[in-house]
């Protein structure tokens, strides 16, 4: 074989993989926010879903993600520095897109099943729709600060629209009163859920 340096290349490869991973997380909220678990053996996994207060076991397997990459021999000698990171970024875009699609699909399935999915049917985003969506899901609060926890995931354009809408809605005292009431109710529901984390007779 031609002279080579496998040990150092392996180390470099690990560093590049980490870079790629961080880029994917930066581009896909699903990759950044989803709970991660590395499975060291086997090809299947199962987890529980809570539907109407009862648990259901979901048995499933892995989904393969494929990112096609093409290298020309003539390009390889110059694949360092910026050119290398550009190539990695292209891959990161592709992986992030697939991760988001998978996350979105799985969330849709789960929310449909739990009955918490709301389809606006192409209609504009309204206060009613917002309250309907918020009321359908469980809210989480920080134990120390009592602040509501959670993240909204939206398309950048939708997110911008939501932000400007919210600035308008904040001035609507009747709406804000309904939001405060909902928050109080959700806080009580959360406290009730938290109070069940105990060993009883």
């Amino acid at each position, binding site marked *: 074989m031609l002279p080579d340096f496998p040990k150092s290349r392996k*180390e470099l490869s*690990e*560093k590049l*993989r*980490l870079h790629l*991973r961080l880029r994917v997380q930066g581009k896909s909220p699903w990759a950044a926010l989803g*709970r*991660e*678990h*590395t*499975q*060291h*053996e*086997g*090809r*299947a*996994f*199962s*987890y*529980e879903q*809570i539907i109407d207060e009862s*648990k259901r076991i979901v*048995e499933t397997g892995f989904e393969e993600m494929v990112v096609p990459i093409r290298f020309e021999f003539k390009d390889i000698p110059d694949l360092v520095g910026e050119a290398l990171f550009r190539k990695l970024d292209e891959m990161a875009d592709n992986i992030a897109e697939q991760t988001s699609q998978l996350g979105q699909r799985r969330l849709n399935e789960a929310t449909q099943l739990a009955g918490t999915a709301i389809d606006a049917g192409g209609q504009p985003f309204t206060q009613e729709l917002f309250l309907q969506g918020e009321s359908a899901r469980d809210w989480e609060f920080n134990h120390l600060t009592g602040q509501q926890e959670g993240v909204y995931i939206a398309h950048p354009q939708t997110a911008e629209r939501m932000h400007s809408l919210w600035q308008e809605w904040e001035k609507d005292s009747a709406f804000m009163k309904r939001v405060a009431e909902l928050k109080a109710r959700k806080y009580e529901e959360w406290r009730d*859920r938290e109070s*069940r*984390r*105990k*060993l*009883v*007779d």
Partner: protein
Amino acid sequence: MIERVVENWLTSANERQYQIPFCQVLSSEGETVIYASPHGALEQGKDVITIAADRVPCAYQLKAGRINLKGWQAIRGEIDELVELPISHPSVPTGKLHRPYLVTNGAVSDTVLNRIESTNRVWKKYNPKPLRLIQSGELVTRFVRAHGSFLPRETKDFSSFLELIVNGGSGPFDKERFSSFLESIVPIRPSTHVLPRDVGRSAASAVLLTSYIVQGCEREQNHWAVFEAWIVTASYILAAASKHRTPVKWWVRSFDLCELAAVRALESLCQECVENHTLFTQGDPFTDGAFYPVRITILAGTLSSLSLYHRLRSEKWEHESFVQDFLLAHTKRIQVWGESAAPYMTMAALELEQHGAHARSEQLIGQLVETIVSLNGSKGRGLPNPYYDPESAVRLISGMEPTNPELFTGNSYALEPLVEFLARRLARGMLTHFWERITRVHFTGFRPAEEWEWFRWRAENGSLDHRMPNTPQSWAALLDAAENAPSDVPSLLRDRPSFMPFFGLVFPHRFGVGFLRSLERAIQERS
């Protein structure tokens, strides 16, 4: 090539080191090994006793190196006993004449050969069967023959074999690489049926190959590594036997030899601890502090597992009280490096109970649960899962693996069996205290698709199951579940309770609800 490997290994081995593989060779040749002196100590000049295929008992005395006249004179008394004293063993009828053998991994000088010939005439009046000699050349041939066709064939397997041999031997044993190598020897890959005889032959070859591979560890007296190697081999023998439903008679001798070798390694480790005067510190003082608690945890687990092994076999063990003192004095130094520490701490807890230290035992498990729920129930990286051995876990949590992004928060492999452990001890107060935090961690466990894959380092098929702890949890229901019969544990493991403590330590990713229920039940039945 294998001849060279065997020759090199044999030349550097002492009689204790080649005793077990020699027993394997005899067994492969059709002799039934009925006794192998457990401590390598000479008893009536007989290190190994067998019954040959023609039902004649045979006694072997093993020596290392060249035997010249001076050496012969030094061992003459032992040889007299070997030849003249009849075998005293329940499997050999009283007074039955035996064939005596003197075995050496070196050569015997011509003068000694003449002496043996003339002395055989004198011994004839005590034992008409003459002393026979087995020297290094014959040993090499017989070892190579015993491998049959079960040798590494592919270049990569042979290269892996050589790399395992030349490994320095002072660090932890590379179980992953060794397992991968064993999978090229033990027939677990083919989907077609393998004949029982071939399962037996492959097991015999695996025993011999393990002997060659652990020579570096033996040279360094790295008993922990030697122990782990033999348990991995024993597990692969069970894997092949389980996969092909091979009757016990074909593989049990090889399995027993692996277990014996593992026990010997732990006995040596225990002896080293008994004689230790440095408070179990070792090497460069600047770096030992970082690893000292890990060493103490490993010692607590391995010594406890050895004591439990003897208990499960209803054997009295001379170092029982040493282990008790060690645990009482040193468990405060125990450190949870990751979830692979769980079996070590559990073995220590089970052993402490045997000495009536129930509060200390529950405290130890409580400490482990506290660590798991604190680290895995909050934000951060979490506690490395059981797939990380002590050194990998320490490297990871100390920032020595900057490119490894694996996270462990949100779930735990060891939590559910530990909760059940406490429930079985009616530690309701402790569990009540922990339950809120327990509910923030999912119970995780890997379920191999088929029984035989339990014994593989990594199962190919199976499911990783995640379960949410109940909110609320009924104490009565928890107690009920904890007292349930063990399920999902392979029968080959359940039927060998004394092997279970060892298996749990070496395969920490198999330490789950079924495993612990099964082990505790076996201990309870023998108490």
